[in-house]
Each structure stands twice: as structure tokens, then as C-alpha cells.
């Protein structure tokens, strides 16, 4: 094997994989390495037994990781995501999926119900004028005001008088003060339409998100979001890797990188100075020869400390619609013995919901014993997306944390798990037991600011944002920025493999 590559990518997470696929399709020789024996890195889709191995492995470093229950039979029929998320029907990520053709490697369906936990019961969140019309929970006046807000949010609000001077007001306050919405409605909009994580999140970024999601509704169906089969993100990352391989990329899984060296071009091995001299040499476990490249792209976590400070860290340039910086996510994954059906609070007048992927939002302060500042998202998954065998369901519970928490994930999330189980069990007669569950804290690497004297050609990709609706779009934006920087460090050449090949085109819809 020729050991000289244009680009070496470390880590097969979603962002890195999109970048690798883009570079490969643009004609560059790419080698893609991951120490794990599976694709997707921290966003991988794992079978249940693989998940438990992953949990046990993490328990060694971190004693607050807990797991309960035994791995059931048919463990391989589960596809569990380490980063549960939904895909907005309009946005840079779906555009990448479509333009690159990677959508063909996977299957997708619409997200089902989005409900909010309010006063101990679940309420549907109106997403359109017709939902508002049919709602039995709002007064006539409230309906008028909510519609007025939705029209405002779907239009060009940037220079509107309503927004003037209020951009940094928390969205909750903005909705109540300027649009005179009730507290309950304001909560539903803030947390289950704008998907804010914290009680203090400001108006302008949330409005941007709301506008996109309102426009996204109707593109593929009534929901603004799609969910991927087989656990979502990990499966999609694998799709991008497949696209990279089709373009000639080389894959090395299950091997760690033992050393990364910056190559001295004036050394004796390189008697002639040419423009395509390697800049980096990578030593891979059990590989006799070093791999060389002119551009090294790595996930932040896989880069050794000394190189992390020298790397050009790609920052998402989405300040106007960025999510707040998260310190950590408390996570719980629970396997339920029985189909997960959320109870309806009103007589169903529309089409019955066949999708078993749904989203349940607990606003801050809505649950006794829960968080007063963080919203908690519960995503359900089941056989509808081939994520679980028939008759079983998966619950993903996530709580974003703005700072270090003294509590373990289990202490933070147990009340939510208990509440959800009560809600599901109220719907059916039989007791639904838990087959197994795990609690862990996902700490997100703090993004370091790039130094001005970073090494040319060394790019660090931040971890995938765990924001449930915005994460994948941020990944696409970062991947595009990384791609551009990589290309410019490779002297701006974009060789076409063949003209008829699909181009990886990035574009915000």
C-alpha cells in the first residue's frame, strides 16, 4: 500500500466522516483511521451487547457510570445511538445527505409526536395553524396570540419592532411580555418548538431555530424532523465513510494511532523540495510503516495534548443561531420490555400516529426532583426504525448541563426515568418492566481557541454538539469549514475523479 496520502482523518465521528467523504469525492487520497472496531466514534450506533461493553469500558475510568440489568437475548437486534438526535427537514445536514447521495445508504422516517410535560400530564405541542385550530387546551384569545407569534417567527423578524432591543431577553420572557402568551404556552414554544436547553436562553438564536423548523414542517410530512433508522447518527456516519471509500478512501478500523510526528521537510529523506512533501507522519499500531499526509484532520479527543494546542480548531460560525455552550450531558439509556406508547391528552381528531419515534420534553422545573434550569429531552425509539426488536423500546434521556455538576447522571435522571415509566404504564394495563439501563455523564471537550501560530495543515474538529435538533446541522457546517481549510492547505487543488460523479455540495437551504 502506498503510504502517502493527501489527508489523514482521525476518528470516524459524524463531522469527520462528512469531511472525509467530501475530500475523497473531491479527488484527494484519504486515509481514515479509528481506534474503535466500529464506525461513528462517540456518535456510534451500537448493538446492545456492544453498548454494555462500551459502558463497562467507561466504568473503568469513571465510577459514576452505572448500569443495571442483564443483556437480553436478541442483543444484536438493537441499534442504540450514543448521540440520539433528529434531523431537521431543511438545513445544511439534510442538504449534505441529499447532495452527496449518502441518503441512499440509509432509511429515514418522520419524527412522530412532540409532547411537553406540563402539570403532570403530556400535552401536544402545536406546530402549525391547524394544530392550533384543533387544540382543546387553549382559549380563543391564546389561539390568536400563538398564531400571531408563529406568523412573526416564520417571517422576517430581523428588523421588526417587536424584536427591537429585546434580542437578548430570555425567550420565555419575550413570549410572555411581547406576545402576551400564557406561561404554559410560552414554555411549550420555548422548549418544544425552539428546543432551548436552559431557562435563560435568549430570544434571537431561538427565533432563528424556530423559523427553520416552521419552514421545515411539510417538506416530507407534518413533522419538521426526520429520524434515521438503525440508531441514527452512527449509521449515517458510516454512510459517509462508505461514500469516502467509494471515492478511493482507505479505512483502518480498530487500530490506535501511536505517534503523530510533524515532518521536517529539510531532513535527509527528502532531498528534493517539492510542493507535495508530507507534513505529518502517523504511526499506527501494528503497522510496519508510517503513513504520511499533507493535511491531518483529527477529532479533538484523538489528538494528543501537545498537538491540540498547535491545531487549527474549527469553530462553528453560527453565532446568530448557535446553541449555548454545554459543559456536559447527563445521559440515560433504558430498554423497556414492551412497546412505548405515550398517552394522548385529547381525543385524536387527526391521523393516528404510527411512528414510534417521539420526543418528550420536560421543561426546567416541571418535575418534582428534577432540574430547575435544564430542559430534559426524552427520545423514544423502537422497531419502527429497526432500532429494537418487535415488542421492545428504547428510551434516551438527556439533560444538558451548563456547568460541572456535583451529582452523578443517575441522581439527576432517575426522577425522569421514573416519571416516563409511570406515563407509559398508565397507558397499558400490564406492567412494563425495564430490561436494562445505564446512566453516564458525557463530558464535552471545551473548545480551545486556536492559536495564531498553528501548524499548517493540522485541523482539529470539535466534538459533535449534543443538541438534539441542531447537532447534525452544526456538524455539516463544521465539516464544510474543515473541508475548505483542508483544501486550501493542500494548495487549493480540487481534482475531479470523473465529471459525472456527484459533487459534495454544501449549502444552507
Amino acid at each position, binding site marked *: 500500500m502506498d503510504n502517502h496520502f493527501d489527508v489523514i482523518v482521525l476518528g470516524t465521528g459524524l463531522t469527520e466522516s462528512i469531511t472525509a467523504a467530501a475530500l475523497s469525492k473531491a479527488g484527494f487520497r484519504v486515509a481514515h483511521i479509528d481506534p474503535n472496531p466500529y464506525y461513528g466514534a462517540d456518535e456510534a450506533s451500537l448493538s446492545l451487547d456492544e453498548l454494555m461493553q462500551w459502558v463497562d469500558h467507561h466504568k473503568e475510568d469513571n465510577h459514576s457510570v452505572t448500569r443495571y440489568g442483564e443483556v437480553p437475548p436478541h442483543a444484536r437486534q438493537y441499534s442504540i445511538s450514543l448521540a440520539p438526535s433528529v434531523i431537521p427537514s431543511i438545513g445544511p445536514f439534510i442538504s449534505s445527505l441529499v447532495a452527496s447521495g449518502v441518503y441512499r445508504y440509509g432509511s429515514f422516517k418522520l419524527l412522530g409526536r412532540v409532547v411537553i410535560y406540563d402539570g403532570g400530564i403530556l400535552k401536544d405541542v402545536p406546530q402549525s395553524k*391547524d394544530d*392550533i*385550530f*384543533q387544540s382543546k387546551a387553549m382559549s380563543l384569545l391564546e389561539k*390568536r396570540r400563538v*398564531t*400571531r407569534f408563529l406568523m412573526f417567527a416564520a417571517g422576517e423578524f430581523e428588523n421588526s419592532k417587536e424584536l427591537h432591543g429585546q434580542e437578548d431577553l430570555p425567550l420565555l420572557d419575550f413570549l410572555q411580555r411581547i406576545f402576551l402568551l400564557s406561561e404554559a404556552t410560552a414554555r411549550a414554544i420555548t422548549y418544544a418548538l425552539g428546543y432551548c436547553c436552559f431557562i435563560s436562553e435568549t430570544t434571537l438564536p431561538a427565533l432563528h431555530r424556530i423559523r427553520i423548523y416552521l419552514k421545515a414542517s411539510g417538506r416530507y410530512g407534518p413533522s419538521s424532523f426526520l429520524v434515521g433508522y438503525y440508531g441514527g447518527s452512527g449509521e449515517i456516519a458510516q454512510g459517509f465513510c462508505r461514500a469516502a471509500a467509494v471515492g478511493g478512501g482507505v479505512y483502518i478500523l480498530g487500530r490506535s494511532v501511536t505517534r503523530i510526528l510533524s515532518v521536517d521537510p529539510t531532513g535527509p529523506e527528502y532531498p528534493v523540495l517539492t510542493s507535495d512533501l508530507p507534513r505529518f507522519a502517523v504511526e499506527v499500531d501494528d503497522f510496519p510503516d508510517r503513513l504520511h499526509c499533507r493535511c491531518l484532520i483529527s477529532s479533538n479527543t484523538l489528538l494528543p495534548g501537545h498537538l491540540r494546542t498547535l491545531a487549527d480548531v474549527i469553530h462553528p460560525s453560527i453565532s446568530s443561531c448557535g446553541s449555548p455552550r454545554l459543559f456536559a450531558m447527563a445521559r440515560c439509556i433504558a430498554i423497556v420490555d414492551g412497546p412505548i406508547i405515550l398517552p394522548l391528552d385529547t381525543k385524536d381528531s387527526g391521523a393516528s400516529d404510527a411512528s414510534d419515534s417521539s420526543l418528550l420534553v420536560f421543561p426546567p422545573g416541571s418535575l418534582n426532583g428534577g432540574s430547575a434550569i435544564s430542559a430534559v429531552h426524552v427520545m423514544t425509539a423502537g422497531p419502527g426504525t429497526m432500532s429494537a426488536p418487535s415488542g421492545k423500546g428504547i428510551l434516551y434521556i438527556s439533560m444538558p448541563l451548563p456547568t460541572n455538576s456535583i451529582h452523578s447522571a443517575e441522581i439527576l435522571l432517575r426522577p425522569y426515568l421514573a416519571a416516563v415509566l409511570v406515563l407509559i404504564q398508565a397507558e397499558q394495563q400490564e406492567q412494563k418492566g425495564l430490561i436494562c439501563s445505564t446512566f453516564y455523564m458525557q463530558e464535552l471537550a471545551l473548545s480551545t481557541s486556536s492559536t495564531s501560530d498553528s501548524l499548517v495543515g493540522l485541523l482539529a474538529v470539535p466534538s459533535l454538539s449534543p443538541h438534539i435538533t441542531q447537532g447534525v446541522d452544526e456538524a455539516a457546517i463544521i465539516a464544510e469549514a474543515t473541508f475548505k481549510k483542508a483544501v486550501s492547505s493542500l494548495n487549493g487543488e480540487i481534482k475531479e475523479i470523473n465529471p459525472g460523479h456527484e459533487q459534495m455540495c454544501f449549502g444552507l437551504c
Partner: protein
Amino acid sequence: MHHVKRNRQTPEALAEKKQREKSKIDEFLTLTDDVLSRKKKQEWSNDAFELTQRLLQINPESYTVWNYRRNILLNGIFPQSTPEQINSLLSNELSMTTTALKANPKVYWIWNHRRWCLENVPDGPERNEVPSMEWRQANWDKELFVTERMLDADARNFLAWNYRRYVLANMPTRRPEASELAYTSRKIGANFSNFSAWHQRSKTLARLWESGQLDPIQSRDDEFELVSNALYTDPDDQSAWIYHRWLIGSGENKTQLEREIQLIFELLQEQPDRCMESLVHYKRLLLQNHSPDSQTLKQEYQDLSLRLSAVFTVLPYCAMVRVAVCSNTPVLVDNALDTCIINKAGTVWSHN
């Protein structure tokens, strides 16, 4: 179709298209000549039948050719066929026109042809030597299903709604009115900006009230509640206002009228630019029917009318005004109001 934009093409693209179409046009003209000459000779052959099919596939809007086709069936093919054969021929016609309808959902002649087919389905098959209604029932049921599919594709296709009324009225075994009411509820729930669905609802309700299946007073109150949801959710939507106007009727029920006026007044506070016209009209009804001597009411009405004429110069608010002539009304103000509305009719009655 509603909400489907017209395709604008460049002059070069248009010229290219013309070239490609030239050979098609020639073929079409030859075919047309052939068919029409046979028609003139009153030829009812199978060949002619095939030719009409080809021609109608290209141009389903040629009602002459549809007519010719029907005549071929009546005069040439049916006399030589058994009832079973006739039934299957007509079922075939219906399938063929379904495909044509999908591409051309608003061509009257396709709908007409279907009507003719349905009306000519023979009695049968024979059960115990007595001809049953089964063929007819099957075809009419299917027809109702077709209208539902058409309305799923475009809930505001007025031809489909009209046709649906025809089917419901002529089916061998009628569907209960209550199920039609439920159908309109479904359609309105899916998208309440649908004048045709509200209109259908009004027709269905009228029949239900008349036949005594629903109590008019309670039912009206239920309807007011339903439509007020639409008014409040989107006061810009005309269909809800027109339905509301129909519910009020000539304003005989004083309690209803006062309650609705109050409701609209509250909406007016919330949304000052939308409700004036209906408010004025209803106040006038109240005045005319119930308190023709009330000076306070007369004053309120005049104030509102003046506000309305001011509003009209600025905003093209649209809902029809029924000029209810009554000798008790203060004539002077009435005239001014009517003139105002008629003058502004062009801008008042806007889009949709």
C-alpha cells in the same frame, strides 16, 4: 391546483419546445380529422372506439369526441353486449378516466363522462333470477372513494366537491348525513382555510336540521364554537367569516347575535384591523330585528359604521355584505355605508 406556481420559461426554451411539438401537433390533427369524419358518417365501429381513446388521451377536453365515444358505446357496442359485458366496459371507462382525472383534475368533460357511465350501469348481477343492485352499488361506492382521493390531493377542488354532492345524492343506497358531517369535520380540521369544506358542511347541516336528526339550536351553538376557533386562529381567512355569516342568517336569535357580537368585539380589541365589517353588519341586524327604537344602539351602530368607512380606505378587508333592507333602519347612515362598500368593492373583495 392551489399553491402550485406557474412555470416561467425562457424564449429559447419555448422555441425548442415548439419544434418538438410540431410533429405531435401534425399527428394530432390527422387523428382528429379521422375521428371527426367517422363521426360524421355515424360510424360506430370498434376501430372508431379505439381511435377516440387515443385522441382523448392527448386531449381530454374535446367534448365532441367524448360525445362520439358515448354514442359509439350506445349505438355500436352495447346492443351487441350482455349486461356483464356492459358493466365491465363501463368499469373500464371509469378506470380510464381516473387516470385522465389525476392529470387533469378540473376538466368538466371527464367528470361528465363518469356521470354518464355511472348512470348507465345496468342492473345486475342476477341473484335468484332477480337483478340486484350490486354492480351499481360497487361502481358508486368506488366513485365516492375516487372523490375522496381527489380531495386528498387538492381539498379545494370545487369540481370534486360538486361531484361528491352528485354522487352522494344519486347512490343506490345513501350514506347517512352524519357521516358526511364527519367528513367535513375531517377536512376542516386538516386545513380550515377551505371554503368548499365549510360550504359542504352548511349544506349537510341544513339537511340534518330539516330532517330533525340534529337540534338546530344546539347544533348552531356547536357550530359557532367551531367557527370561532377558526376566526381567532386566523382572522384573515375569509371562509370562516362567510360561514359565520351563514350561521347568523337574518339574525332572529337575539341571544346568539349579542353573544357573537361580543366575541367579535373582543377579537377586534386583539386584532384591530380585521373584524369591523362583520361587527357593523351584526349590529345593524340587532338594531333592525330586536331594538329598532334603541337610541344607544343606533348611536353605537353609527360610530362603528364611521370607523368602518375609515378602515375601508386603508385595508381591503373582505367579507360579503348582505344589504338587508328593512324599513326600520336609519336610512341615512345605511345609504352612506352601502355606497361606501359598493365604491370600494373592487379593493374590498380581494384574492383567494
